[in-house]
């Protein structure tokens, strides 16, 4: 599995498309419900984690299904602690999920202003 992280609008999906020859049909865009792991690339995982009580548990349950995937996650956990409890939980759960996925990944890349920084 390849994990791509980075801030909003930094070019994470563009990087995935050019580095791994992915087209729009290969991309599942998370929206809060179930993730379709049959797609090669799972995008906006931070939308899946928003309001989800246990994102790591969900990924553990489906572990076999994303072993060869490209997972894209916005690093929403770098900013100030939000005022709202819901956003605080979102921030923490997303950060923890990033750690879990990063351990599992064979490659971790951070995208900064369109440029790749290899973290693992």
């Amino acid at each position, binding site marked *: 599995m390849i994990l791509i992280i980075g*801030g909003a*609008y*930094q070019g994470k999906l563009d990087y995935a498309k050019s580095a791994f020859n992915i087209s729009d049909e290969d991309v599942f865009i998370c929206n809060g419900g179930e993730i379709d792991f049959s797609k090669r690339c799972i995008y906006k995982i931070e939308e899946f984690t928003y309001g989800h009580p246990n994102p790591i548990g969900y990924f553990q349950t489906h572990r076999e299904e994303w072993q060869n995937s490209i997972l894209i996650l916005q*690093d*929403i956990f770098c900013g100030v602690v939000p005022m709202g409890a819901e*956003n605080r939980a979102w921030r923490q759960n997303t950060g923890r999920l990033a750690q879990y996925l990063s351990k599992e990944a064979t490659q971790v890349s951070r995208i*900064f202003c369109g440029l790749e920084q290899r973290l693992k």
Partner: protein
Amino acid sequence: MTYFISGGAKNGKSTLAQDLTVALAKGGKHYYVATMISTGEEDDDRIRRHIADRDGMGFETVECSKNVMSCLEVADKDGTFLVDSATALLQNALFPVEKNYEMDMEAAHRCADELIRFAKTVRHAVIVSDYIYSDAERYSESTEMYRKCLADIDRRLAAVCDAVIEVSAGQLTIHKGDLCI
């Protein structure tokens, strides 16, 4: 030689940018492109602090809160330019004070195009931006548009500049090119 510098607030971007500009100028003309429009006491303080920081470094100040290419009407394009910051230029274009801060997307696109053209036109430039993309917050539509427009500028500048540097707590990550000083 062109540099693009970004990172968090008060992490040392401006200090690095000033040092880089002076080093690139090698004793030649170097300009500080003053982009900020003061909106009150807090901004006045910040501007005063930046002026004091630059004291004795030999900068010529060019006031330019919009249309960055207009700098070249008064400054020599073969000089070295410090633009601090893309963030302020975009803010002045996207939310113009004279239009009561009403969002102006056309001006934002012009601002982006001019910055890229500027980086390609002048001999040496150091352009500073702000990294504002990693929050757990659902922003208003206009704030989100601001982040999107700035990210577009950042990515285009990162693509055309010779070097791209991220500053975190005064430490540098070089994403592209060399530091050269």
